């Protein structure tokens, strides 16, 4: 697993308080990992900080799963 994926996973595990095994490629933050809409805003904020990138609101809306987040950040960072 790439370094970016590891760092994203760490943020998700810490923020949502879920077990690491549950954070899989297609795991949806809201449907599978118990996030509410405010959690997803906070996750995006945490990603921006960790990777020093800006995630615009329209892009943030497309980040629904762990895989989406890793893909977006890999392309942006």
């Amino acid at each position, binding site marked *: 697993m790439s370094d970016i994926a590891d760092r994203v996973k760490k943020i998700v595990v810490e923020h949502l308080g879920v077990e690491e095994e549950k954070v899989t490629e297609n795991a949806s933050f809201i449907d599978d990992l118990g996030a509410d809409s*405010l959690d997803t*805003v*906070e996750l995006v*904020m945490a990603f921006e900080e960790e990777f020093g990138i800006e995630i615009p609101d329209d892009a943030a809306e497309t980040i629904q799963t762990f895989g989406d987040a890793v893909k977006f950040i890999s392309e942006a960072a």
Partner: protein
Amino acid sequence: MFDLTGKSALITGASGGIGGGIARALHAAGATVALSGTRTGPLEELAAELGGRAHVLACNLSDAAAVEALPKQAADAMGAVDILVNNAGITRDQLAMRMSDEDWTQVIEVNLTSTFRLCRGVLRGMMKARWGRIVNITSIVGATGNTGQANYAASKAGVVAMSKSLAAEVASRGITVNAVAPGFIGTAMTDKLNDEQKARILGQVPMGRMGEAQDIAAAVLYLSSLEAGYVTGATLHVNGGMAML
């Protein structure tokens, strides 16, 4: 009680009567304050009066870019914005039939839209801190309406509904959003009324006197405090009984 030591507060409209009173009250409770307003002269004077823990940040709230920049400037100056008091407001009174689009738009822009922008701007920091207090100053006329103030009353009612919506969104993160609704308070805004108008309004106030800036400041201090942590989405009316809502 109501110790704000270590907290940082951004107050808009701090050059006015009520805003100045709010700034003095929060500062006296130990908060560091950022005083915002369009007129820097009175802000500098207030900062000098307060001594330490006071910063002056000029901002014209009808300038969207300046409004967007203000929360960051305040955080840079104070290290954080733990408390936001949206107090700035303008009036452009006119009977609705004679009210221009410009009078309408300006009042909505400053009183409602800039208040929203500032709330949005401080929420990120408050979410991370898991603590925040937003106090929006509305008005008795936002609940009752008032002749000649269709624009102002609409903007103030808008502030109440917006505050409730934000309160619901961020309550789980330790952030409260409340409103304070002043009644008839002696300030530059009410000085514009003539004696006859003042006498007529006072006739509707059971307390028989105008309120003072300190009356509003005390309500804001309470809602900014740790002790008010379970109060959110509320509107605290401070009006001498003029409207019992």
